[in-house]
C-alpha cells in the first residue's frame, strides 16, 4: 500500500461483467476498471510515464511549463500529477469540453486554452503546436499522440496486470483507439507474452461521433504512435450503442462508466457473440477508461431511445 498519490496509479481491479455476458456460456468478459486510478481514468498511466520519462531525459525541468492538447482525461492526469510534483500545466482543449471538466482542470491549477468546438481534438492539436513552436524552450510538450512513453506505460503496467489478473487465460483483448496508446502498448505486451492471444481494435463507425476521446482513423489526424499492424481486425462502434451500454452497465452491473468504456464493452460483447456463434469459449478483456461523473450532463441519460429496455440482445 503506497501512501504516495503517484504510487497509487495503476494496479486497478479487473471486473468480471457477468450480466453483460448472460446467455453466452463459457465466455468471460472482463473490464479493466481504470476509473479506480487517482485521477479517475486510464490516462493517469501514460501521463505519469511521459512526465517521468521527460524528467529522465531532461526535457522536463522545474522551470518549464507542461503543455499538451487533450480532450480531457489526459489533461486531468497532467494537472493532477503536475500539482503533486510542482509543475505548471497549460492545456489546449475544444470549447465543448464539459463545464465540469474545465472546473476540475482549473481546480488543479492548470491554465486552459480553448479551441473551436467544430474542429474537435484536431483543432486543439494544431493550437498546441503553434504555441510550442513559438517558444519551445519555455515548454515541455509530451505530445501524447507521438510519445512512445504513452504506449510503453501500457506495455509496462496495463498488459502485465491483465496477464496476472487472468492468470494468463486471456484469449482476446479489444479496445477503442484514441491516441492508440492503450491498444498499442497493451497489445504488444500480450502478443509478446500470451501465445495465441487475439488483439482487436475498435473505432467510431463514423467520423462524426460522440465517443469521447476516440478517433475515426480514416478521417482524423493519425497519431504517430499508432501501428496498424497490431490488430487482427477492427470493429466499428456506433455512439448510440455505447450510450445504451453505459446505461446497461450502470443498472445491471453497478458499473458507472463513461462513453468510451461503454463502446469498449460493446466491442467486447460483439467478440463474445461471435465466439458463441462459432461454439467457442473465451476470456475477453477490455478497458473501462473512466467513470461517468464527467458525462452526467449528457442528454442520453434522459433519452428513452437510449434506455436499457430498448437494447436488443
Amino acid at each position, binding site marked *: 500500500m503506497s501512501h504516495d498519490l503517484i504510487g497509487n496509479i495503476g494496479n486497478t481491479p479487473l471486473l468480471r461483467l457477468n450480466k453483460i455476458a448472460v446467455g453466452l456460456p463459457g465466455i468471460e468478459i472482463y473490464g479493466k476498471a481504470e476509473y479506480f486510478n487517482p485521477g479517475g481514468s486510464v490516462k493517469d498511466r501514460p501521463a505519469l510515464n511521459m512526465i517521468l520519462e521527460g524528467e529522465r531525459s531532461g526535457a522536463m525541468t522545474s522551470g518549464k511549463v507542461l503543455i499538451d492538447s487533450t480532450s480531457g482525461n489526459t489533461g486531468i492526469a497532467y494537472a493532477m500529477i503536475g500539482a503533486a510534483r510542482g509543475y505548471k500545466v497549460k492545456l489546449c482543449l475544444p470549447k465543448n469540453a*464539459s463545464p465540469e471538466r474545465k472546473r476540475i482542470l482549473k481546480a488543479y491549477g492548470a491554465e486552459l486554452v480553448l479551441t473551436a468546438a467544430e474542429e474537435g481534438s484536431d483543432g486543439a492539436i494544431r493550437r498546441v503546436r503553434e504555441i510550442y513552436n513559438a517558444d519551445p524552450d519555455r515548454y515541455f510538450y509530451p505530445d501524447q499522440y507521438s510519445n512512445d512513453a504513452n504506449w510503453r506505460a501500457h506495455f509496462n503496467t496495463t498488459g502485465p496486470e491483465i496477464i496476472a489478473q487472468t492468470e494468463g487465460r486471456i484469449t482476446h483483448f479489444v479496445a477503442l483507439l484514441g491516441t492508440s496508446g492503450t491498444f498499442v502498448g497493451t497489445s504488444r505486451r500480450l502478443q509478446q507474452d500470451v501465445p495465441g492471444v487475439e488483439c482487436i481494435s475498435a473505432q467510431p463507425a463514423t467520423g*462524426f461521433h460522440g465517443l469521447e476521446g476516440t478517433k475515426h482513423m480514416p478521417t482524423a489526424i493519425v497519431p504517430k504512435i499508432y501501428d496498424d499492424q497490431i490488430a487482427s481486425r477492427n470493429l466499428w462502434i456506433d455512439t448510440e450503442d455505447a450510450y445504451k451500454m453505459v446505461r446497461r452497465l450502470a443498472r445491471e452491473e453497478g458499473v458507472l462508466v463513461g462513453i468510451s468504456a461503454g463502446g469498449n464493452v460493446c466491442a467486447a460483447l460483439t467478440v463474445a457473440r461471435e465466439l458463441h456463434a462459432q461454439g467457442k469459449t473465451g476470456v475477453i478483456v477490455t478497458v473501462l477508461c473512466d467513470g461517468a461523473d464527467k458525462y452526467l450532463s*449528457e442528454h442520453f441519460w434522459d433519452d428513452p431511445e437510449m434506455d436499457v429496455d430498448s437494447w436488443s440482445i
Partner: protein
Amino acid sequence: MARILIPTPLRQFAEKNDTVELPGATVGEVLGALTAKYPDLKKNLYNDEGKLRSFVNVYLNDEDIRYTGKDATAVVDSDVLSIVPSIAGGKNVR
C-alpha cells in the same frame, strides 16, 4: 439565408465547406436543405427514423435547439446554425 457551420469531420461530405448558406423558415427546413444539397450528411446527422442522432447538438446562434422548439425553431436571415458533436457536455459552445 441562414449560415450553417459545418464541423471538421463532416466537411468531407459537404464539398469541404466549413460554412454553407441555405434558405429556410425553421431549423428543420434549413437542415432539410442542407441534407438535400449534401445527401451523404444525412446518415451522419439522422437516425433511421429521421430524427437527429442523440449525440448531434444543433445550436441556433448560442441556443441548443432542444430547448427552443427543436426542428420547429424559427430561423431568420443572419442566424447562425452550428452542428456540434456531443463529445463531453457539448454545452456553452460559443
